[in-house]
């Protein structure tokens, strides 16, 4: 089994928001819910870098640990998914997540902030693969069709890579060696407790 990961090569990211738009369109994600987002650090200064961030599908995911109803599970491809039937919208996963991945349809917690929504690595949820119920709750299931997440597939500069951790780490490593520089595999240390050694 592959160990699925994301890597964002900040040297290539041009902040075009193609990944976020692809994600929104593919899964019909409503306004205000941002499964993937683009953050620019050091804006306007030398060394400005943009990083596309979504759920990193952590090893030992903090969201899963703190969930009071244990609605998270990890698939055989090491993708962290959750059940919207169990989620009570308490917001704890957002406090624990180092990457700000969990999203809620409503802002307040008064009454209900709604079921949490996050990046599914384009692989749906606990419902039957490619079922209507799965699409309505979690969006499409590209992984079940043998395809990788659309954000990475659509990335115009191939800054965002998705796939087996070892394969994409090798691609990134080759790039860094070829061009001679790289700002690191953003989020890897926090998510996977490892980094891409060059």
């Amino acid at each position, binding site marked *: 089994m592959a160990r699925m990961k994301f890597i964002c090569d900040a040297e290539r990211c041009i902040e075009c928001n193609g990944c976020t738009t692809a994600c929104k369109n593919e899964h019909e994600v409503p306004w205000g819910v941002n499964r993937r987002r683009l953050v620019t650090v050091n804006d306007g200064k030398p*060394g400005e870098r943009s990083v596309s961030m979504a759920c990193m599908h952590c090893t030992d995911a903090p969201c899963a640990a703190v969930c*009071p109803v244990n609605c998270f599970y990890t698939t055989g491809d090491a993708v962290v998914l959750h059940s919207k039937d169990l989620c009570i919208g308490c*917001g704890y996963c957002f406090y624990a997540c180092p990457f700000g991945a969990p999203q809620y349809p409503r802002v307040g917690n*008064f*009454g209900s902030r709604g079921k949490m929504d996050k990046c599914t690595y384009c692989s749906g949820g606990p419902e039957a693969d490619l079922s209507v119920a799965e699409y309505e709750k979690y969006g499409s299931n590209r992984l079940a069709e043998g395809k990788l997440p659309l954000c990475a597939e659509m990335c115009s500069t191939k800054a965002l890579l998705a796939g087996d951790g070892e394969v994409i780490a090798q691609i990134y490593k080759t790039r860094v060696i070829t061009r001679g520089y790289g700002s690191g595999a*953003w989020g890897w240390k926090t998510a996977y407790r490892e980094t891409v050694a060059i």
Partner: protein
Amino acid sequence: MTRLLRIALAGLALALAAPAAHAQTGRDVPPPAQTQNPNGANPTAGAVTEDQLFRELNKLQGRISIPDGKAAVLEQPQGREWRAFRESWLPWIAGVAILGMAALLAIFYFTRGRIRLEHGEQSGEKILRFNSFERFTHWMVAFCFIVLAISGLNYILGKRLLMPLIGPDAFAAWSQWAKYAHNFLAWPFTLGILFMALVWLRDNIPNRIDVQWIRQGGGFLGDGHPHAERFNAGQKIVFWTVILGGFAMFGTGLLLLFPFSAADINGMQLSQVTHATIGVLLTAAILAHIYIGTLGMEGAYDAMGSGQVDLAWARTHHDLWVEKEQAKTASGPQLRPRATPAE
């Protein structure tokens, strides 16, 4: 052991709201020597790396075009410390506080036993101790508190104790309702706390009589009955615990009800830690209050039940208050079935 130490340090750091150091396990190898860039510029000269930013800042923050301030935080490793507190410390704090209190009360019950009415504490005459508004306020807060405490503990212990028994689906449905109850009953609870503060504050200001009461062990340990006004020092402690604890719960709870309205991610984590910790301690304290008001002392329940207590009981436990009440005229605010001669 080192793991425990690290968690302890993490919890401490959170408690102090200090920007805790990001736990780093690996090290990035520095980029290799610069290759020639076509335009002569060195793209790495000013480039930032994640490592470098974490060394300078406790979290990575940038700019984002969507109007969502919290989305601009790229990475916040403090989530791991919050997790360590919530998953490693909090269940223990909750368990020890609540079971510890229950054990203490059980020990007290079996050694000291129920504090019985003494001879001559049943005169048949009644004196009004709490009027209907006071009782209404007390029971509104009490009801809300019990629901809030149970639904609050459900966040911490539910998945450990209840979920294995009833299964994930039933537990999720129950937790959803518990969350609604928690969010909505917070308001009558706070209102009740406010009423309590208004009506009972005057009688709960500590004074010299309290020092004496505490010195004599409140009558729990010996057989004597130290002097007490309307509320003895023990009751005053309960009052201040409830008032201060209640308002602290309201303040931190408000931040959690309206997430990110006034606090950033670290502020939210801190409010949750404070809310949960004060919550479990308050629950333990109230257990003692419930015990002494019902099982622990005969005759005490009437004060909040019917509102009327036996005059002789009142004379034993709140002698100075009875004197003051009776010094008032019979047509005063306190109702009495028969005029009792002042002593």
